[in-house]
């Protein structure tokens, strides 16, 4: 009944290979656990509760381009060569961002949150995981245009000190400016974006007055503590790299760092829904993941 011509044969590895496959996978898992433990004990950066798929991808990438055979070899290098650790640390921290990333988010801040912040005589804002600073300056521009910047203090933190240096410099590649200008306009910008930067060769430097109310500081969400009395906390696309357990710790940290009625802004694909602390927040702009701490903690 079956016509042989209708078959396609597939060349598939057989069961002895499956045993090898499992053996190798098991070793990789042990080696990755040990590597993260070594990093923690030696340098006190804790990646143990990060999403494993992400960590594995970044670590294996470094292993390949460093011509290493396996993660045990990498662990040795990590322990005895600080500069190699620093290279891997850069791989493990994601510093990809842009000015006015997700313009609709900034538009929502402008329309829905700014009117509420205007009630305060002084505003404290914490940008956690600010990377190279593009989004911090975006917020500074927005606050300036809304007439709030002079009474705002922005704390911009990251665990990656190299990214923080870049953020402090406020110098960015010129080839991104076209995208940033378009984002700025979609975000409800009221001026010409060119007013905020000076071009030099292949870079732009942002207007230095944007820096006036920003303090850049080294802070690790995994191991460091509360950063107090904030009216607004931004932490966008950081929680996606954490396990649920670590997400919970960080959301508690945010809750304790917010004033009653303070705002918490997460990334487009992040949510409080699965957190133990969800009950202490109400959703203000659902689509943009803007939440507000309920004034009464017995909620």
């Amino acid at each position, binding site marked *: 009944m079956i016509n042989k011509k*209708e078959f396609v044969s597939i060349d598939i*590895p057989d069961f002895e290979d499956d045993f090898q496959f499992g053996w190798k996978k098991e070793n990789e898992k042990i080696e990755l656990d040990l590597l993260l433990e070594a990093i923690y004990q030696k340098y006190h950066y804790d990646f143990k509760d990060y999403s494993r798929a992400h960590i594995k991808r970044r670590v294996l990438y470094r292993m390949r381009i460093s011509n290493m055979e396996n993660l045990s070899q990498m662990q040795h290098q990590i322990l005895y060569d600080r500069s190699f650790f620093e290279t891997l640390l850069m791989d493990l921290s994601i510093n990809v961002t842009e000015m006015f990333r997700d*313009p609709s988010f900034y538009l929502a801040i402008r329309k829905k949150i700014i009117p509420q912040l205007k009630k305060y005589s002084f505003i404290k804002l914490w940008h956690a995981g600010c990377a190279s600073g593009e989004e911090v300056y975006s917020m500074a521009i927005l606050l300036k245009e809304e007439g709030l910047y002079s009474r705002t203090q922005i704390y911009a933190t990251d665990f990656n000190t190299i990214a923080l240096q870049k953020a402090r410099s406020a110098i960015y590649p010129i080839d991104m400016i076209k995208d940033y200008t378009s984002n700025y306009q979609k975000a409800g910008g009221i001026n010409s974006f060119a007013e905020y930067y000076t071009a030099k060769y292949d870079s732009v430097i942002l207007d230095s007055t944007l820096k006036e109310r920003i303090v850049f500081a080294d802070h690790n969400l995994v191991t460091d503590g509360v950063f107090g009395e904030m009216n607004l906390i931004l932490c966008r696309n950081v929680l996606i790299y954490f396990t649920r357990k670590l997400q919970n710790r960080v959301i508690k940290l945010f809750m304790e760092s917010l004033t009653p009625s303070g705002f918490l802004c997460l990334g487009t694909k992040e949510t409080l829904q699965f957190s133990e602390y969800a009950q202490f927040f109400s959703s203000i702009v659902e689509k943009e993941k803007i939440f507000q701490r309920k004034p009464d903690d017995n909620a």
Partner: protein
Amino acid sequence: MGTITGALLSKPRVFRCIAIGVSAGGMHALSTIIPALPKDFPIPIVVIQHISPLSDNYTTRYLDSISRIHVKEVDEKERLRRGTVYTAPPNYHVLVEEDETFSLSVEERINFARPSVDVFFESAAEVYGDSLIGVILTGANSDGSKGLKKIKEEGGVIVVQDPQNAEVEGMPKAAIETVTPHFVLKLDELAPFFVKMAKHGRKKTELIPENI
């Protein structure tokens, strides 16, 4: 449809995930494949389609409205389930964890793309090994080729849309040049192929002996 009537694996195998990479021309391709699947299709399907970072993912809502199977955008930490087609969110890479939950990442674009097909394929190959089916459909660049090669290396089954039958031939062509696929199929052969592969793992009586 001659190429798929008896597919042929040398041993029983339950597939746990179908990973599809698609770019330009994807709307037509997906609207052909997804609505042809039954509501309770047993293998979770993950579609990594190149879309604008500012897209509102209309494609997902549209596909859901015309299909029996449920189509939804990936949420972070969501568990892969049967009867569901998952689509990558605009501007995020998608990865899968050992416990079969999704992770998202905003790391740099790969092959000018975020989401990138390679990122998901490589991650899925690590987790699913030989219980993964990787599929490259119509598209203009070469994203997905490396990932498809990795899926094959880890023992998975790889399928490429026939470039002559693809709206845009670049991506299937690049894939075939990088790695020899187990199957090259036309668009309307794909849904029946998936159904066949799902049954293959379940009904042992259908198994065909090796070396036909």
